[in-house]
């Protein structure tokens, strides 16, 4: 088992596109790590550069502390599952699983034994003699995983592992994959464009955009405190409310450390905690629909007032759109608590859940670590 270190990595295509643009990253031993971003953000290129299928223009890739930047893909000790699985159509399941061993001239007996055992681990018993075309999508995916596992790589790379499955099967496969990774404890990097998948599976997520890293953190951090408006927009199945606002008062000293203050936004105001901006600063206020609370009477303290426009049923909860002084704000409410359209409502949010972003750069105006000051 091994970690992966990436230092100042850049992959530039002949047409000048910087697919990966100066990246530093460390994936810990045994970690389940997600590369997340919209299509074209460079996440697949990064994965393929780790595998050695693309060559790095600048920087270094280390696997298990060994510099593999210029090493052939087959000699890096990586195993990979491709988006289309890349199962060889002319080989049986068993031949597919043991092809990595055949390449290394492992004896037929050992290969048969490995095929048997790996197939057992991945619930593929009884399918060993089939051809890939005779398998369902989920089975094909497990064969691809089995082949990667049988190759005994130090790290496992997965390119959009669930994207070729239909919606219901995808959930099942997601659970299976997470358990498998946990059981094997193998360092795993996977690429996805689906934020829900990344949140559900990964120990840590790297959110990428245009070849650059926009945030790195645990699913909880990435969800609760997006480092910038790009991540805020990208993460979450209901989009975060991003509203123009102005810091109206701050309570702390003029060092801007550990402040609690009030922002005026959408004709009302919200209290915000732990930000760093002076009074009068133009900011983008970010607050997730899940963190907003809906009240019908008067409340003390900063709040927003508006009329309910529509309510969309999301199952156990509903997304209510509220018109606050011309701005539409989304709020989730538990099922059967939806207010009627037209009702006047009041919105509040805990100060710790209200995030302020720089209007210009879109970066989080975060509390500075005390040691910096």
């Amino acid at each position: 088992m091994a970690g992966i270190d990436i230092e100042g990595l850049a992959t530039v295509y002949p047409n000048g596109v910087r697919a990966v643009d100066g990246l530093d990253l460390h994936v810990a031993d045994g970690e389940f790590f997600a590369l997340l971003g919209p299509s074209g953000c460079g996440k697949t290129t990064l994965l393929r550069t780790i595998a050695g299928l693309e060559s790095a223009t600048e920087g270094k890739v280390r696997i298990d502390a060994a510099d593999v930047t210029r090493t052939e893909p087959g000699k890096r000790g990586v195993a990979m599952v491709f988006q289309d699985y890349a199962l060889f159509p002319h080989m049986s399941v068993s031949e597919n699983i043991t092809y990595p061993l055949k390449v290394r001239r492992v004896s037929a007996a050992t290969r048969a034994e490995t095929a048997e055992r790996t197939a057992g681990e991945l619930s593929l018993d009884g399918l060993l003699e089939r051809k890939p075309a005779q398998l369902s999508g989920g089975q094909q995916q497990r064969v691809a995983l089995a082949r990667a596992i049988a190759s005994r790589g130090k790290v496992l790379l997965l390119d959009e592992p669930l994207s070729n499955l239909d919606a219901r099967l995808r959930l099942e496969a997601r659970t299976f994959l997470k358990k498998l990774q946990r059981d094997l404890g193998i360092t795993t990097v996977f690429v996805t464009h689906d934020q829900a998948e990344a949140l559900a599976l990964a120990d840590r997520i790297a959110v990428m955009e245009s070849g650059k890293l926009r945030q790195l953190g645990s699913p909880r951090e990435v969800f609760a405190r997006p480092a910038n408006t790009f991540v805020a927009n990208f993460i979450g199945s209901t989009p975060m409310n991003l509203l123009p606002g102005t810091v109206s008062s701050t309570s702390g000293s003029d060092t801007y450390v550990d402040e609690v203050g009030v922002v005026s936004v959408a004709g009302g105001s919200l209290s915000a905690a732990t930000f760093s901006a002076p009074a009068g600063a133009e900011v983008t206020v970010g607050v997730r629909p899940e963190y907003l609370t809906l009240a019908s009477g008067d409340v003390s303290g900063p709040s927003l007032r508006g009329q309910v426009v529509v309510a969309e049923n999301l199952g156990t909860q509903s997304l209510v759109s509220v018109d606050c002084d011309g701005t539409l704000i989304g709020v989730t409410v538990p099922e059967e608590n939806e207010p009627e359209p037209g009702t006047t409502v009041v919105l509040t949010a805990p100060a710790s859940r209200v995030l302020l972003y720089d209007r210009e750069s879109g970066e989080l105006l975060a509390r500075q670590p005390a040691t910096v000051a």
Partner: protein
Amino acid sequence: MTTASPPAPADPVQGRGPADGGGRAGARGPARDVAGLGVGRALGFVAPALLLIGAFLVFPAIWTIYIGLTNYRLTGVEAVSPSMVGLSNYTKALNDALFHNALWLTLLFVLGSAIIGQNILGFTLAWVMRRTRPAVRRTVEAFVLLAWILPSTVVAYLWVAFFDRDGGTLNNILGTPGTAWLIDYPMACLVFFNTWRGTAFSMMLYSSALQAVPPSQLESARMVGASGWQTLRDVVFPHIRGHVLTNTLLISLWTANDFSPFLLTKGGPNHESETVPVYIYNVALQGGELGYSSAISFLLLIANLLVSLIYLRLLRRRS
């Protein structure tokens, strides 16, 4: 947990939301060398094919230019030591009544059998067969395809027998014993023959083109009560216009270069069916005038090149 690079590059342009994705199409550059072949070995892979093509296709084509500038002959003094004669072969072609005759006959042949015959019959078949029962369609298509895949000498022999003066099938059918079709009407025979021979290609091309016409558009036409002809003109034709053009160019090129007329008539009687390919053969190997026939070959190559360039341009524009 180790930290990553500061997640905030001071780049105001990139900071703004999902404006990304612009470079998507070009982002995954051309896949380079997935099997790790290396340019050296790749060149080695291509070399044998290129050598053969160079030796037996490119070199002859270029050499035609040189031979066409000499008075090289199959036999005699000029066979041993040909001399340069400049453009005199080309000036000769300008005034050669037999060459003009060959050009005219080739034009008739292409117009009659390819542009009109194969095109129209091929489209008719594709259009009519679209909704016939599969059994009927397969039977008809089998005959049409068979005409296309049989070896040319066999096919030519079939038609020589069909047109024969004494006991040929055509005379039996029409009740005209003793009519020597290949001698009395050689060009008409060739046009019929080549239409029969080559229609399969147009039929297949138009069949696949017709499948690309969205059924919803055909149904819309039916809903508004368009007649069959109106549907064809307003819905189908706009879709297959490109195919008609490329198909016509291709079959014209093949027909103009077809050597089969030689198998039926050898150009006779008295040059009445001597198309350009047959003329080239007769001048070169019967008359022995290799220099002159090379000059004519070169003209044919230039004509082919022009048609092919137009064809490729159309193809590229369509895709």
